[in-house]
């Protein structure tokens, strides 16, 4: 375990809190019940849960779906910040490193929103200030007029070197996708470096490896559905079970059965093997993604049981909380767009 003068007590304390919070997350039955409700009923139902404070705070300024969206985002960000505040020692460093992925998402959202000329309020609704860049900093970025000034404002932050290097190229190619790939590669590279340097990093490394594997496999499936021929090496993240070259080779296999067999040869996670075996037939990409997310969460739960006082119980809670918010948002958005219950259900991670 990591260096904490008080012995294992702070780890036990924080991991127990995470377990209790995890037990308070919405069960599958609750989502199914919400699927049969109207939007105002869903809002009322959510208000009775952990989101009451945010909904009460924001109900004067927002209404309907906007109120729900922003309340969920605020709650998620607040929850993540509260967890950072109570985690001790290296667990705090690992949690902060993990949450830096939200910085990437926020910056990309701001840049994309600005390029598309969206209103500041609309962009703000979907920002989740859970990483290094807090709400005040993001608000400052939002009022900047030009994307170049947003990039300049990032000076001194972790993301700056990659953004400064890639943004001019993104402007030239009129697409942020390459920059997004590079930001995530840099994010995982930093996570691996942190895990290698810090005490207790071996357990964190196991999670990172799982996350990279699932992301790479998901990207492979997406590329198979995509008709555009792209270089797979560009999108793959190094540091997992598969090397980038292996992933590129896998992407070249056209036959689905052959592709699944080649994947299964190297995968060691039993639940993932079972899911991959089921993916031999035709299946919509959204369902494949949901299956992979479920496998990742299940595997993380197993890791948390094996190492009950480590970073794993915290990460499981962070991930499950994220998907609770995503599910509630999907239900609300689906209801707003008058989608059928079955269609919305297909987007839920339950």
């Amino acid at each position: 375990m990591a260096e904490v003068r008080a012995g294992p007590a702070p780890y036990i304390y924080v991991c127990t809190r995470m377990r209790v919070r995890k037990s308070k997350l919405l069960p599958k039955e609750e989502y199914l019940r919400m699927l049969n409700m109207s939007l105002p009923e869903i809002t009322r139902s959510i208000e009775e849960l952990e989101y009451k404070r945010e909904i009460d705070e924001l109900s004067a300024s927002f209404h309907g779906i906007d109120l729900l969206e922003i309340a969920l985002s605020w709650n998620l960000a607040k929850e993540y910040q509260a967890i950072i505040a109570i985690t001790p020692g290296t667990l705090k460093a690992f949690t902060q490193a993990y949450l830096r992925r939200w910085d990437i998402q926020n910056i990309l959202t701001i840049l994309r929103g600005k390029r598309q000329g969206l209103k500041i309020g609309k962009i703000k609704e979907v920002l989740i200030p859970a990483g290094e860049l807090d709400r005040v900093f993001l608000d400052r970025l939002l009022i900047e007029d030009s994307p170049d000034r947003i990039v300049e404002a990032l000076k001194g932050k972790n993301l700056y070197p990659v953004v400064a290097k890639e943004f001019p190229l993104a402007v030239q190619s009129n697409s942020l996708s390459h920059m997004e790939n590079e930001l995530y590669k840099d994010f995982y590279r930093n996570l691996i470096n942190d895990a290698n340097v810090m005490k207790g990093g071996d357990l964190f490394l196991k999670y990172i490896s799982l996350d990279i594997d699932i992301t790479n496999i998901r990207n492979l499936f997406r590329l198979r559905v995509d008709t555009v021929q792209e270089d797979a090496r560009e999108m793959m993240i190094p540091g997992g079970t598969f090397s980038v070259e292996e992933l590129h080779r896998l992407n070249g296999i056209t036959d689905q059965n052959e592709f699944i067999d080649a994947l299964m040869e190297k995968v060691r996670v039993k639940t993932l093997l079972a899911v991959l075996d089921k993916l031999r037939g035709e299946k919509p990409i959204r369902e494949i993604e949901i299956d992979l997310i479920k496998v990742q969460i299940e595997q993380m739960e197993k890791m948390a049981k094996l190492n009950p006082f480590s970073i794993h119980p915290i990460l499981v809670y962070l991930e499950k909380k994220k998907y609770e918010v995503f599910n509630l948002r999907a239900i609300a958005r689906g209801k707003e767009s008058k989608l059928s219950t079955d269609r919305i259900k297909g987007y839920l991670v339950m």
Partner: protein
Amino acid sequence: MAAEIIATAATDLALMQASQKGFQAIGAGLAVGLTGLGTGVAEMAIGSAAVGATAENKDIFGLALLFTVIPETIVIFGLVVALLLLFS
């Protein structure tokens, strides 16, 4: 000569009784001390978990407290052994 032997035997007996009492006292001390340490170690983990759980859900304070004091039984056993050693 016989008196000398009786006197030496008496001294030896007194010494033996004294050291027996000493060992009893050491044994009693160890019984309470070591079980106390064991209780402390056990309560550290249970206590931290209990405080964590209570911080999230105030309703389980009573139950958490009950779980925290369960390892006290170990030190009570130690105390009983110590009392038996000292007064039996």
